């Protein structure tokens, strides 16, 4: 056994520093905006300043006349070829999916919708020319409040009306559960509209070389995008190559087929020269799809001892002006999780998708599950208060016990594994729950003007975007499998081709660790290839915390196939029976005789020479595999947050934050912890700071990072994290996924803490984001001052 293989056995579970970092910390990155091609032109879009209007004329003559301008196009110029941006998730049979031209031709339906594009030799000239575009509009009334958008008197966003769909689910007898229930609580919660705010703005470069197109894009989904570009533009799929170079964050916002990507392809086709478009931040805030934006009406019925009887949820979900790639499916990703980890007799759910004259909504970190988790975890605290119970005790009374798995929930999800007791016990201990409760009581009794609040979130989520069979049942057009190829090179080095498309998740590192263990090769000898449809031809990309739960098992499976070939070859070379060959410590050898055998690199060299192959065996160890799990995976955990609320100023500060997550087996704990940190931060952002605000005319007010408050280091606390490890049973690695867990868990933990601090004042809710002004006004109202003090 060599030192190399000894080390390789221990890769999984090891906090390997990342391979990706070398280029990222030195500035040697390949962001899309860095790409320069000979003859490359720059595009700048002219965008609607109106929320809703008819386009009466587009005059681009002055723009075209500016020196350095190559061309300018309006929507009408592309009317015959631009198609309609796709919606891949018709959630009901009678869903209204309006036509969505990449560039508006007749009518604009949100501020920022593209109406023209100017192409010039450099970005400054293109911007100058765009300012010369003369577009005339006939204003139409905007539709801005989804609560009144379905009124008959409301103006219409589309001729078909403002309702896109209504989707219902029910299990058990909800009427019976609520009828005669000793305790029924109803609440209305607002999921404010959010802007995902990846720090890298979107960028696109497109070329057309003799009818063969290459599109570089800051995208999470090169594979899906390639298929969709072919369907939207009619360009044959084999003539489209999509490359996602280094991508600077996504959080769901780059899980999209965008107008700008389609138009870049159409413009390069028209002009025969490479084109680039890079968005500005203010342009991005307007036109990168937004997240959340729901009103949630939730009712819960319980017995006096806290046992849950039933749950009823009625959602209004803002689609914005159009349905984009998975817009209507997002609220439904939460539909099966409102019941969370709790047992109950009945559950009913209804979601109505509503059009407004705003930027479309779509996936944003957590996508449906943060909304569901927020509502259930908030109302569990309200129920606990109503019953006079400790909120942790109420949860414990109702949660699925660890010995009850697998457990089919009231929403028909089969939870394969979990241990809510263990995660909660560990979180309680790290947090010092009892001591903090005692301090809280003392400070309340003393009338301390700075109140202490404790927030709980015992969350679960369903992730690992797969399984194809279930996605099909939900009406989703695509699949959810993942693909991998493992290639062993003649020198014994390994290339792993993955269909996942990382943009910060560290797949190059984690997949290397996985393969190093499986094949007994050194971590350094593995290279991971991704993000280019010519290099990685198959895959479903990275979103929905699917990469480790679906992508890693595909790699594992490909490695198994490599080993099977290696075994056959070893048996042949040793003139032994295949049944007598085993793999240990990086070598295939005769059982009981480790000296007699070969390493994978030695066997790879043997296939390269191919002098002595078994009869009928191809001279290669290379293997492909596709993995499609039978079920989602279910990360869970307990997050506890302590806040100090200054009742004189409304200022909330997070005093401590403890997260104990159970994401199953872990390949790289350092990467997992980083995902948890970042996830928590985004959830805190929703709780305290972030909101996309439209004014009464439908103008987005929060177009910059000065107005849309992405939290800084000074705005966020330090986090205490730990894990429990209950392996998933639905994949061979026992992994679950971790990309969204922190975001799903943290928002209700923070808001529960704030409300807990203020409950002695009779306050039962604060609308997010819980700004000092909102907190202060709530306290004033509770004191009968009406906020005037």
């Amino acid at each position, binding site marked *: 056994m060599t030192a190399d293989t000894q080390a390789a056995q221990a890769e999984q579970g090891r906090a390997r520093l990342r391979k990706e970092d070398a280029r990222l910390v030195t500035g040697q990155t390949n962001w899309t905006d860095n790409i320069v091609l000979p003859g490359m032109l720059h595009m700048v879009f002219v965008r609607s300043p109106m929320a809703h209007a008819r386009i009466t004329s587009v005059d681009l003559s002055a723009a075209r006349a500016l020196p350095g301008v190559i061309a300018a196009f309006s929507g009408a110029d592309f009317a015959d070829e631009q198609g309609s941006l796709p919606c891949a998730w018709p959630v009901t049979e009678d869903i209204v999916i309006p036509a969505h031209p990449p560039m508006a031709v007749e009518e604009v339906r949100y501020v920022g919708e593209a109406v023209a594009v100017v192409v010039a030799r450099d970005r400054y000239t293109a911007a100058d020319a765009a300012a010369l575009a003369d577009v005339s509009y006939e204003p139409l009334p905007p539709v801005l409040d989804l609560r009144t958008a379905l009124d008959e008197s409301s103006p219409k966003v589309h001729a078909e009306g403002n309702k896109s769909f209504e989707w219902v689910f029910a299990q058990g007898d909800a009427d019976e559960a609520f009828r005669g229930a000793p305790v029924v609580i109803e609440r209305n919660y607002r999921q404010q509209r959010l802007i995902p705010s990846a*720090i890298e703005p979107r960028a696109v470069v497109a070329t057309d070389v003799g009818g063969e197109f290459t599109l570089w894009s800051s995208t999470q989904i090169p594979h899906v995008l390639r298929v969709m570009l072919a369907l939207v533009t009619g360009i044959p799929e084999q003539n489209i190559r999509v490359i996602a170079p*280094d991508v600077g964050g996504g959080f769901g916002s780059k899980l999209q087929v965008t107008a700008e990507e389609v138009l870049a392809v159409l413009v390069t086709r028209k002009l025969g020269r490479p084109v680039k478009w*890079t968005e500005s931040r203010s342009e991005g805030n307007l036109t990168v799809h937004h997240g959340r934006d729901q009103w949630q009406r939730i009712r819960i019925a319980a017995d006096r001892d806290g046992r849950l009887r039933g749950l009823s949820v009625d959602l209004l979900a803002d689609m914005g002006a159009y349905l984009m790639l998975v817009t209507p499916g997002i609220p439904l990703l939460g539909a099966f999780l409102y019941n969370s980890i709790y047992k109950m007799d009945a559950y009913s759910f209804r979601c109505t998708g509503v059009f407004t004259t705003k930027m479309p909504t779509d996936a944003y970190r957590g996508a449906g599950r943060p909304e569901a988790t927020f509502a259930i975890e908030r109302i569990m605290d309200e129920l606990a208060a109503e019953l006079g119970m400790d909120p942790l005790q109420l949860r414990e009374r109702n949660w699925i016990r660890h010995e009850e798995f697998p457990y089919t929930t009231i929403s028909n999800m089969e939870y394969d594994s979990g241990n809510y007791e263990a995660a909660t016990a560990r979180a309680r201990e790290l947090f010092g729950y009892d001591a903090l409760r005692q301090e809280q009581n003392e400070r309340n009794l003393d009338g301390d003007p700075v109140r202490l609040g404790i927030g709980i979130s015992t969350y679960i989520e369903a992730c690992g975007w797969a399984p194809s069979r279930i996605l099909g049942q939900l009406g989703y057009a695509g699949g959810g499998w993942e693909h991998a190829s493992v290639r062993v090179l003649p020198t014994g080095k390994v290339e792993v081709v993955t269909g996942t498309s990382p943009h910060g998740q560290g797949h190059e590192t984690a997949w290397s660790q996985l393969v190093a263990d499986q094949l007994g090769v050194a971590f350094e000898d593995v290279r991971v290839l991704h993000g280019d449809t010519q290099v990685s031809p198959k895959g479903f990309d990275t979103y929905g915390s699917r990469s480790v739960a679906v992508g890693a098992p595909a790699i594992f499976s490909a490695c198994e196939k490599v080993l099977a070939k290696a075994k056959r070859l070893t048996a042949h070379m040793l003139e032994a029976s295949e049944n007598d060959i085993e793999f240990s410590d990086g070598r295939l050898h005769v059982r009981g005789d480790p000296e007699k055998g070969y390493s994978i690199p030695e066997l790879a060299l043997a296939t390269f020479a191919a002098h002595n192959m078994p009869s009928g065996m191809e001279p290669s160890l290379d293997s492909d595999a596709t993995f499609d799990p039978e079920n989602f995976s279910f990360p869970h955990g307990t997050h506890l947050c302590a806040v100090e609320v200054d009742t004189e100023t409304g200022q909330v500060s997070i005093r401590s934050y403890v997260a104990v997550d159970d994401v199953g087996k872990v390949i790289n704990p350092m990467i997992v912890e980083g995902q948890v940190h970042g*996830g928590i931060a985004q959830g805190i952002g929703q709780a305290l700071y972030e909101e996309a605000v439209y004014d009464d005319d439908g103008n987005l007010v929060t177009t910059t990072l000065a107005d849309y408050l992405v939290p*800084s*280091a*000074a705005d966020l606390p330090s986090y205490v994290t730990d894990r429990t490890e209950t392996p998933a049973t639905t994949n061979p690695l026992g992994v679950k996924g971790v990309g969204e867990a922190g975001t799903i868990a943290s928002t209700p933990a923070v808001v529960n803490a704030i409300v807990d601090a203020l409950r002695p004042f009779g306050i039962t809710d604060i609308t997010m984001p819980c700004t000092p002004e909102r907190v202060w006004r709530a306290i004033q109202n509770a004191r009968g001052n009406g906020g005037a003090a």
Partner: protein
Amino acid sequence: MSRANITVTVDGVTYTDDVEPRLLLVHYLRDRLGKTGTPIGCDTSNCGACTVHLNGESVKSCAVLAIQADGAEVTTIEGMADGQWHPLQQAFHSEHALQCGYCSPGMIMAAADLLRSNPRPSDQEIREGLEGNLCRCTGYENIVRAVRRAAEAGATS
């Protein structure tokens, strides 16, 4: 449009160029000099991704005109390693202080300036010192750890 002649030293190399007076320093670095290690994250000087050193002090290069750098010395992330990685680059790697890495060049340049003026900052001083640089991936926990680690390693320049 009239043009101005500027001479700027960037990462140890001196360049002389005619530029439009309105050209932003960050576009000069990226588009004229090909120094694409410095990215752009916003258009209002809020995110800090484009932070570089101008005569030794950190500036957001989207908020500086190229002509304002005439005669100046500019250091970008590409000029930080001197044979080996700068202690901050090493610390960001060691503490997993980056995920997508888009904010990292600006974050490292801002942190270097912070440590120059305050070689042993407290965690709170690190957080406040970096509040002009936004990261959407890490939640800042590991960035704070990395800057602390670099400070302990004596990274004061």
